[in-house]
């Protein structure tokens, strides 16, 4: 069948043309078919297939099919289906195109068998997803999107340099285990780390995800970080450093999440925490740990998507997302409340919900390999995630004090998408065998024994007890309209301030030039000012132009360094 011959991402890229359909509902419905087609194609793809191409004398491998890439491929098709269903009421063609290209790029990235193909999709992930942030069409979203783009373009650049160095030393671009042997290993790890939200590089996530449109964030939450997790699982399994990075990622965001007011930002922090579990599992590197990490990535796509969908529904219907403004919504949005609680139970890893069956694998692997302190850290993070994502999100949005907001349930597409995700959370939790049988390694593991279930239930109930107790004695920190500074402070405040003070002399020069111009001396400044009359485009071209120039210069320097070494 011809469809099987096509690279899997192409279904989505071609599907983006469906936005030309003028009829709104027909367009949305036909977009829903794309991930279904994608899943069918994946099902029919013969395993171990490799598509070989030659480009400039390099043998490339744009499609590589094995158990790991297929599982991520299915997860991304599923996520795309849920997100498109959630966005069924959207008429904005920009978001629709961006969503499809973004999902396609993620699928392209996980099937890429060589580093050059990977680089192309790595950049496409950034360039397509940024439009989901810009789709909000506010000046704030515009600036934040730009910063997002610069960070991701930089990550792509580092990946490209790493790939070239890898090619130089190995004579091939085949993408498989890389490890930390050469400088290329570190560079590629850094590139992946930025997309994965490693500590110090995590603020693009907490900044951009709460800023995208309600439907855009659901797309964003599924693809970029999970594609990065896939890369780690492929190229760095068993790298011990990842255990410590992962454990750090599980622990530090929960503190920020407890005091954060914007509920979608709470979820963004909690996402770093969940990715931390996966990174840790990949670092441990045993079959059980890798399986746990991959299964957790699969589950996280669904339950984190569900939580972002619930918060997106709240934002769509009330126009608010700060914990300090919300409360009491269970009265007017009972279905959304129930679905959100299913997501909260899943992320908290309650027995019979999806998070439990995957997270317990990583925890068991940590004990088995003798990572005692790491295990304690993961346990603390598990209690913490329940505290901020499991209780805080539903409590402050739907219960707490009644904010007086009366609204109604979100559009049917949104409800349906959340129902699909919630059903999957429970099904995977109750019947984990289906997911287990598709994991990269064969294993014989059952999460449902007395020990695990009792331990996890105790941990969660007593975490909840702490929440209740702190609330009753009024020691729980109230939701306050505020901003908490994080690493981003360096590039959002410190560096701009330094830059501004350095620029003062130049500003004076600028004023003089303007004065010169005013005296009527014809110069090219006049032409420039005429050209720049298109105000918004001028601001776009100057800021992004500078960013692109920086990237190109850095690229040139790195390439020449690479050639010299």
């Amino acid at each position, binding site marked *: 069948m011809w469809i099987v011959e096509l690279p899997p991402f192409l279904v989505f890229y071609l599907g983006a043309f469906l936005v030309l359909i003028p009829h709104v509902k027909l367009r949305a419905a036909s977009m829903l078919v794309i991930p279904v087609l994608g899943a069918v194609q994946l099902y029919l793809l013969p395993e171990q297939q490799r598509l070989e191409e030659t480009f400039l004398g390099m043998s490339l491998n744009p499609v590589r099919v094995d158990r790991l890439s297929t599982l991520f491929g299915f997860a991304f098709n599923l996520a795309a289906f849920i997100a498109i269903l959630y966005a069924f009421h959207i008429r904005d063609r920009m978001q629709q195109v961006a969503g499809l290209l973004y999902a396609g790029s993620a699928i392209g990235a996980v099937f890429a068998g060589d580093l050059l193909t990977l680089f192309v999709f790595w950049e496409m992930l950034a360039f397509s997803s940024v439009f989901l942030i810009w789709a909000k069409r506010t000046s704030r979203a515009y600036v934040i999107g730009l910063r997002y783009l610069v960070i991701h373009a930089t990550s792509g650049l580092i990946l490209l340099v790493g790939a070239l160095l890898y090619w130089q030393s190995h004579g091939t671009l085949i993408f498989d285990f890389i490890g930390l042997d050469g400088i290329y290993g570190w560079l590629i790890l850094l590139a992946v780390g930025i997309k994965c939200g490693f500590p110090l590089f995590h603020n693009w996530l907490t900044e951009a995800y709460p800023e995208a449109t309600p439907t855009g964030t659901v797309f964003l939450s599924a693809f970029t970080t999970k594609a990065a997790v896939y890369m780690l699982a492929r190229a760095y399994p068993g790298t011990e450093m990842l255990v410590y990075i992962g454990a750090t990622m599980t622990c530090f965001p929960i503190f920020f999440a407890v005091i954060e007011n914007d509920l979608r930002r709470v979820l963004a922090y909690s996402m770093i925490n969940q990715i931390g579990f996966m990174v840790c599992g990949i670092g441990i590197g045993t079959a059980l740990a890798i399986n746990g990490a991959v299964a957790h990535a699969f589950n996280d796509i669904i339950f984190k998507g569900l939580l972002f969908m619930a918060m997106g529904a709240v934002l769509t219907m009330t126009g608010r997302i700060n914990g300090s403004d919300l409360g009491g919504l269970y009265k007017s949005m009972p279905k959304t409340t129930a679905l959100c609680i299913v997501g909260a139970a899943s992320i908290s890893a309650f027995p019979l919900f999806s998070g439990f069956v995957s997270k317990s694998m990583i925890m068991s692997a940590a004990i088995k390999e003798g990572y005692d302190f790491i295990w304690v850290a993961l346990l603390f993070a598990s209690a913490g995630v329940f505290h901020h994502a499991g209780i805080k999100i539903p409590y402050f949005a739907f219960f707490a004090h009644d904010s007086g907001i009366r609204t109604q349930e979100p559009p049917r597409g949104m409800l349906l998408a959340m129902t699909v995700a919630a059903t999957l959370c429970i099904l995977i939790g109750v019947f984990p065998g289906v997911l287990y049988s598709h994991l990269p390694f064969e294993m014989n593991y059952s999460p449902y024994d007395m020990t695990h279930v009792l331990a996890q239930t105790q941990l969660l109930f*007593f975490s909840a007890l702490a929440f209740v107790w702190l609330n009753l004695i009024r020691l729980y920190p109230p939701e306050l309209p505020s*901003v908490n500074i994080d690493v981003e402070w360096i590039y959002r405040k410190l560096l701009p301030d330094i830059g501004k003070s350095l620029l003062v002399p130049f500003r004076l020069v600028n004023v003089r030039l303007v004065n010169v111009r005013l005296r009527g001396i014809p110069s090219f400044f006049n032409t420039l000012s005429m050209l720049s009359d298109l*105000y918004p485009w001028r601001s776009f071209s100057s800021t992004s132009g500078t960013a692109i120039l920086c990237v190109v210069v850095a690229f040139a320097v790195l390439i020449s360094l690479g050639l010299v070494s």
Partner: protein
Amino acid sequence: MGDNRSGLDDPRTVRNILRVFYVICAGLFLLDFIVTRDIEHHLESWPAFYAVFGFVGCVVLVFAAKWMRVLLMRDENYYEDQLDDQLDDQPSLQENENVDR
């Protein structure tokens, strides 16, 4: 007052829900002394290890986070001032250009 409130607005309902919750917690705590579990780690052999860990862990988490607020919390528009500056630059330049012609 209490009569026209329903559901979770009624303090009595909340109190009853909490009572059920406390009973479950107590039950889970006691279960630890009845059930013999397979132990993978020596810490697990401590009585009610997970219960104590969950409770203490969360209290520590919340207090640490409250303390972090002292250091890290800023006004809601903390970064927006920066953003306004950036966006303000544009109209002011445009004004210059208008003067120009």
